[in-house]
């Protein structure tokens, strides 16, 4: 049985490891913000202004803000797959962490939390950037900040766990590009990055039901419901439940697969 004292001890180790990750992140944060700002600004300029000349909806830039937050989280988390798979195949720094005085599963959880926390800090810059680019198109008073906070936190953690799941699926570095083409890209492209679930439901109902199996759709819909309002999107609390469900599922699969692969105690 795990005692309160043991939980307290695990928390101390967990915090120290997370802190070490954040020290590294602190060194890189400015570059990461600049990189992300370039992606966000260019996307919003093209989607919010240029493509409107070709007949795109006038509020499409606003729609894109909802897509850019999960996209940032996804593309921030994905490089961790490269570094972790490279580490497992090479220097295995993870071995050191798996001998620390904490249950080995918590090391995996720490990695997910670390990615989530870093991603969360990065997406905090998106709304101010979007306001700068979109101006009056983005009404800050219309944003449900509480919902946005909940959805951003849940999505960050989801993508942290998702990246571990990808790691667990990849046996070696040569599989990385295939996994991107076969899993990540379809999930992302069909995950509501550029469209809402309702719009696809009105056009291709059969496809909209398939899209409900894609966890990414709940992150984009939930974020949009927070920023634009509930009417045109999937119910916010359904998105919350779905993201929690998918996070738990991915976590269970990841834990089982990585336990087998790394053969930890």
């Amino acid at each position: 049985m795990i005692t309160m004292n043991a939980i307290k001890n695990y928390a101390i180790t967990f915090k120290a490891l997370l802190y070490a990750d954040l020290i590294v992140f602190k060194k890189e944060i400015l570059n990461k913000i600049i990189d992300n700002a370039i992606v966000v600004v260019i996307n919003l300029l093209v989607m919010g202004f240029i493509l409107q000349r070709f007949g795109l909806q006038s509020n499409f830039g606003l729609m894109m803000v909802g897509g850019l937050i999960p996209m940032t989280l996804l593309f921030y988390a994905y490089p961790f797959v490269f570094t972790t798979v490279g580490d497992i195949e090479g220097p295995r720094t993870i071995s050191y962490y798996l001998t620390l005085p904490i249950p080995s599963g918590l090391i995996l959880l720490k990695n997910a939390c670390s990615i989530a926390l870093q991603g969360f800090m990065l997406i905090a810059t998106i709304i101010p950037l979007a306001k700068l680019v979109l101006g009056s198109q983005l009404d800050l008073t219309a944003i449900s900040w509480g919902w946005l906070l909940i959805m951003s936190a849940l999505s960050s953690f989801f993508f942290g766990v998702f990246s571990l799941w990808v790691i667990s699926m990849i046996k070696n570095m040569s599989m990385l590009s295939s996994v991107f083409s076969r899993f990540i890209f379809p999930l992302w492209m069909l995950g509501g990055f550029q469209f809402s679930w309702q719009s696809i439901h009105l056009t291709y109902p059969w496809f909209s039901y398939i899209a409900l199996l894609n966890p990414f759709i709940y992150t984009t819909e939930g974020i949009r419901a927070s920023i634009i309002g509930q009417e045109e999107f999937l119910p916010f609390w359904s998105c919350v439940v779905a993201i929690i469900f998918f996070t738990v599922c991915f976590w269970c699969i990841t834990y089982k697969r990585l336990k087998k692969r790394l053969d930890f105690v």
Partner: protein
Amino acid sequence: MLEKKPLLSLRNISKAYKAQHETIQALKNVSMDLYEGEIVSLLGINGAGKSTLSAIIATLYPPSTGELCMDGVSVYKNVPNYRMHIGLCPQHPNLNAELTLEQNLVFSGMAYRMPQAQAQQRAKELMHAFELTRYAQQTANILSGGFKQRFSLARSLMHNPSIIILDEPTVGLDPHVRHELWEYVKKLRDNGKTILLTTHYLEEAEELSDRVYVLDKGIIKIEGTPETLKADFNKGSLQSVFLELIKNNEEIV
């Protein structure tokens, strides 16, 4: 007279793993005891199972069967607690390349629940002891193998463990650095630490070990002090004993 109780006992440890559809039996019913304040060497040719055994003792991998007990209690009842007593210096230094070497040590101490100030103090002491202070603010990737290995050893000692596992700690080190490390390892033993040393260097084992286990194909072939082994085999050095053993084994095969 009371019989000395082992600090760590391994009973019938076996380890099998799958590699490309083939099951490899890395260890077969290995039993051994480690006592407080001794240096025990694990010897064997490549693939003998030395590193696997070290990793099992460090709880990096679980055994397929068998029991690992500390002070008579199974370590698997409370692995995190047992890990507080273990310091592992792996064969390949796996320092975090993005942190400075001082940060590597301090965060290691904090991960073992040391307050930050105490971890900083301990890091300074160890860097001084291993003559690493001038590299404190560098990252691991600029260091030579020898310095990485020293840092790796320093990190394994951060939390003052009672059992230290040194997996090939002197591979690739210059002779004078190796001798310095030997002296440090002896000091650790004199301070009551138990050291499990995995090595290819037989003169190292002879110089340092209180007892030696020779592993071959996952089985413990012989165990004893360097002196008794030399006497039993009527040889002048541990190296000659080892070569004799290997030769006998090849003849049997």
